[in-house]
């Protein structure tokens, strides 16, 4: 397979060459900066021309695998719920996901996930960074990595949009060593960023004049500072301007869509996420909070899961009907699963030992269930897969050979996924 970007041997390129490449790529719209650069701009441009997008559904706090993808009904830790047959013969999921159960032929589920952290504070960033080997740098979250590796495309929209409950704004911390411009533009509560529209009192020509003044001031400012600081400022400003041209995204959605996705925060955000993908955003993270069910887990999942089921099945159906699953990689996951053991608060605690991740879309072998937990659901009873394996898998699904492509962190070659992990071939079309 021809690798799309650089090979490790190419990391001996000089800093001067890198900067030259960066300049070329930036001109081409890839937005490559001095730090976190990639080499081989020609290949990068080729990559950019292929439409590749990601919908990353982050279930923050930890969805219970036993109440979702890997039910163990009527066993010691199985909980009260039944399992139901799915559209994939022989495969059952929890009764709490009836809509998704009828789309299992479109999905791939790995029930053999085994990761390292059982705390949110460590697990959330570690999982979303792919848990690479420690090389003394802060790796980017998956969204920032994809933003860097694929770029923003032709839409003029930011490459990485995070649709979430709560506040919005520019979230630079996701980007790690790539630099702040690869951070996420967060859309909070489904609302457009404040002051998105140009006030009526400012004409277009006056706006142009203002911007010329701003650029001049920036040029003076940046002379005394690291270039990536201004780069980030410029990026945020350009992002806002691009959104001004796409403000239709924030109009009230079609009530029929609202009904299908569910009148919930997750339904709202999933629908907006779909619209962002349709508009051309490369990486959309849709976030749901409140899944840390240490208490009252079963009543909790009895309301949480149907709302996830409705929103998730609606977006998968929509992407399928629009032919978008050919180029959109869809992933649904948490930072870990939940303990088989049921605590005194009738809850389940954190469990990275054996849990499940679901995916579909670009490059993914649909109608696949791999990995297996033992009869009680306590441990993986097949080959274990860590998050590093999934990062390799997802990069491959996006056409990026993660064994050959690397970052260049200001001269420091860095792999884009854990060196010792491998793509999970059973999940990939090829």
């Amino acid at each position, binding site marked *: 397979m021809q690798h799309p970007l650089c090979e490790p041997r190419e990391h001996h390129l000089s800093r001067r060459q890198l900067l030259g490449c960066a300049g070329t790529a930036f001109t081409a719209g890839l937005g490559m900066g001095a730090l976190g650069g990639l080499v081989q701009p020609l290949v990068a441009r080729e990559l950019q021309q292929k439409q590749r997008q990601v919908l990353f559904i982050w279930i923050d*706090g930890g969805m219970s695998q036993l109440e979702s993808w890997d039910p163990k*009904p*009527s066993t*010691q*830790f*199985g*909980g*009260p*719920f*039944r399992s139901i047959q799915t559209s994939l013969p022989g495969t059952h999921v929890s*009764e709490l996901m009836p809509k998704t159960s009828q789309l299992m032929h479109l999905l791939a589920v790995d029930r053999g996930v085994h990761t390292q952290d*059982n*705390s949110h504070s460590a697990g959330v960033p570690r999982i979303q960074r792919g848990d690479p080997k420690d090389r003394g740098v802060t790796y980017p979250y998956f969204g920032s990595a994809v933003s860097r590796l694929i770029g923003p495309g032709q839409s003029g929209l930011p490459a990485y949009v995070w649709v979430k*409950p709560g506040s919005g704004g520019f979230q630079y911390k996701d980007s790690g060593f790539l630099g702040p411009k690869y951070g996420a533009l967060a859309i909070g509560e489904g609302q457009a960023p404040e002051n998105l529209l140009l006030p009526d009192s400012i004409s277009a020509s006056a706006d142009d004049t203002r911007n010329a003044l701003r650029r001049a001031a920036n040029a003076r400012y940046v002379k005394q500072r690291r270039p990536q600081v201004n780069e980030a400022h410029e990026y945020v400003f350009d992002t806002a301007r691009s959104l001004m041209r796409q403000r239709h995204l924030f109009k009230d959605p079609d009530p029929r869509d609202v009904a299908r996705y569910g009148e*919930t*925060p*997750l339904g709202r955000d999933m629908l907006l996420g779909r619209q962002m993908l349709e508009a051309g955003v490369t990486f959309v993270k849709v976030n*749901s*909070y*409140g*899944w*840390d*069910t*240490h*208490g*009252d887990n079963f*009543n*909790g999942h*009895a*309301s*949480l899961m149907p*709302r*996830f089921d409705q929103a998730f099945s609606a977006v998968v159906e929509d992407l399928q009907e629009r032919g978008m699953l050919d180029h959109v990689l869809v992933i649904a996951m948490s930072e870990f699963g939940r*303990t*088989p*053991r*049921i*605590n*005194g*608060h*009738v*809850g389940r*605690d*954190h*469990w990275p*030992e054996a849990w499940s991740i679901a995916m579909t879309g670009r490059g993914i072998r649909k109608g696949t269930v791999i990995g297996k937990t033992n009869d*009680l659901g*306590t*441990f993986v009873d097949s080959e274990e897969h860590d998050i590093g394996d999934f990062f390799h898998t997802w990069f491959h699904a996006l056409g990026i050979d993660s064994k050959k492509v690397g970052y260049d962190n200001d001269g420091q070659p860095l792999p884009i996924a854990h060196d010792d992990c491998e793509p999970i071939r059973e999940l990939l079309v090829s």
Partner: protein
Amino acid sequence: MVDLTPEQLKEKYDPQPLQVVESERQMVGAKFSPCGKSMVSGGYDGLLHRWDLTQEKIVTQEPITGHHGWLQGCDFHPSQPRVFSGDSWGRLACHDYLQPAPEPVWAVETAHDGWLRDLAVSPDGSLVASCGRDQQVRLWTTADGQKIHQWSNHQHDVYRVGFHPDGQYLVSADAHGMIRKWDVKTGEAAGEFNAGELFSVVRLQDVGGVHAMTFSPDGTLLLAGGTRPKNGGNVQGTPLVLVFDWKTMKQIQALEMGPTSDVYVQDLQFHPGGFLMVATSGNPGAGKLHFQRLEDEKPFYTSSGFSNCHAISVHADGERLAITMTSKGSNGNGRPLDKDGNYLGNSSPIHLLGRPQEEEENS
């Protein structure tokens, strides 16, 4: 009782440990049979566990099988040796609990679509009501399990069901704090009690609902227990008992039963002595047993050292209590293994408690 001070009440009723019935699995809640000869408990293992109380020592009997998932609904016929049980897969069954290896007297395999959450037998023993996650309330004959009525008015999971002591009315309480009153003979809706204070939507999650319900012995009050939710996920909230006037259907009192870490009122029972017993269960290790007169501002007795009290049962002798708990130290994000490397589950010790000795009472 009203003449006694809280200190005197505590001295009279301070529960004394008699025995702890250990179990290997987690239980929903132990109940004494009306005849006093048996104790049963539904389990998270789909079994109806049984204990013979007629021997010098408590004898564990063969459990009643045939259920799946969690066996949460359980109630007795008031005068016949019949126990009714309902599971989270929707099965409702009737057994003779005094038999060594009971076969079903009758069973309805799909009494509900999924989680059958609660059962209640009418005071005259002729009817058993059930409710469940399918938002349905159903009425069955205890003799042969024939469905004679169904109410579909709830819009959410129905958590609790109970007969008024006069037997003419049934109440059902749901996950959003709506309590509906039904005329048993006509099937007509007879009113509503608003226990919405026990519910909140937090982010994507419905939190709370009516977790416990009982009537005052004279039938003038309806009490609903749960939590005033503070958050979801880990679920914190003030354990709360709402007291309603049965006639006016208005809330007349609210009893806060502990800190937000104690979270849920999981069971409510009136003691034969006339006071209310409240079981709370929240964060692992948190939760208590409280005794309180409704006219008092605070309990005259609150347990210490108990862990996650889930259910209360009063023996027919009026002296003994069974309190179902969860094993201490039940929480944790790690991977607890025994010496053989087996993954450890939790269990539900059932604490049998008695009254202080008579000589102590007279002293």
